[in-house]
């Protein structure tokens, strides 16, 4: 746990180009307040997110990783988010099994019109990661 109250988690967000990224944009243009901890990487589809991207983000020092894509059925590429769902669910399971705080990894579906949901997801996830404290298992640093 972070002793220091000033510690702020670093969160990497992989957002799909067609829905969640636009949703994040909408949250911004609507001037919705959400924590600034998230650093966004735009991907063309949540299906592009290879599980090793997530583990790599942890290794490079991320405290939490969020993947967000279109709602099931809305994928621009028809099935990309379904594929993402399978891979990422198993990764989430594996993290749990290995005792690597699965709470640091989250997937959400946010459509282009859901600026509010995006702000909510980021707020909730940031709080969740904050409660877990700094991530050290993949970086080898001291907590």
């Amino acid at each position, binding site marked *: 746990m972070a002793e220091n109250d000033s510690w702020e988690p670093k969160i990497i967000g992989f957002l799909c180009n067609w829905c969640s990224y636009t949703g994040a944009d909408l949250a911004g243009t609507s001037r919705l307040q959400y924590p600034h901890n998230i650093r966004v990487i735009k991907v063309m589809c949540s299906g592009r997110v290879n599980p090793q991207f997530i*583990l790599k983000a942890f290794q490079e020092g991320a405290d939490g990783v969020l993947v967000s894509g279109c709602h099931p059925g809305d994928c621009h590429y028809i099935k990309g988010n379904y594929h993402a769902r*399978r891979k990422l*669910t198993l990764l989430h399971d594996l993290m749990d099994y290995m005792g690597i705080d699965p709470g640091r990894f989250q997937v959400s579906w946010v459509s282009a019109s859901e600026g509010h949901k995006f702000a909510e997801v980021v707020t909730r996830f940031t709080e969740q990661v904050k409660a877990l404290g700094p991530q050290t*298992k993949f970086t080898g640093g001291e907590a």
Partner: protein
Amino acid sequence: MPDASAKEAQVRDIARRWLASGEVRYVIGYAAGRGNVARAAFVRRAGDADRLIWNPTCVNNLTLFLREEMLRKLAKGEKPDPRPIGIVVKPCDSKTVVELVKEHIVDPARVRVIGLTCEGVCDPKKLVGTEVGPHAVTADTIADKCTVCRLHNPLMADEVVGDEVPETVEDDYSDVAEIEAMSPEERWAYWERQLSRCVRCYGCREVCPLCYCAECVFDREKPYRWNERTVQLPENLWYHAVRAMHLAGRCIDCGECERVCPMDIPIRKLNRYLEKKAKERYGVEAGRSAEDAPTFGSCDVDDPEEFIW
């Protein structure tokens, strides 16, 4: 237990016949090795067929060499030889052939399979320190993978050696359940201890018949090293997590990774957990039929998603 030497004679007969008629280029089978592990043998002449053996030390999965041959680039000036490769497989190994066919690595027309029925083989690690010689499969010597094996008859075999063996009990994944029952802290402590030992010899990767990328992510240098060569827990953890993910829904539990591990890391416990989860969540099972869709190459609108917001 059926007589191993009768099966051995049959394997030799088939290999001899295939090689004599020239219908296969060569036969990959087992030969006597030093100590208590059989060795891979590449038999090219009918006269050498008697080098082949079959006994409970034949623990290795030879399909790795089949895959290697299928992906091999022809040498300069070498003419392609259309004749198939003969291979000796146990039922578990035959699942690898199925999986490789499913993944379009092995063309079924380019392989001839001698499938053995099997009721288990010995774990060479359990034989360390014992006399070298023919060992029986007993409760003390049986390989762990064999105690949970449901498949005793080979799939996709051109010739089956041995009488059909009835299927045994369903795998209950009790080894995985043991870890699942732990608290998150205990689970971390367990894997921390196991993976800290890893020396990253990449034996588990090299021996895996299903690890066949032309350039492995762990070897890539350009434009970016995905995983540092540092042999410390963070990198070891990354290696094992990514390796397990790459085999999720594909691993057929031949147990080779765990067998070869010089540091005795329980690698199968990772693979089997994902195998179990893939089965529970998506009803998929690797190595069942070449007609199945690959786990990550398919999806269902009703796939569970309870952790997703």
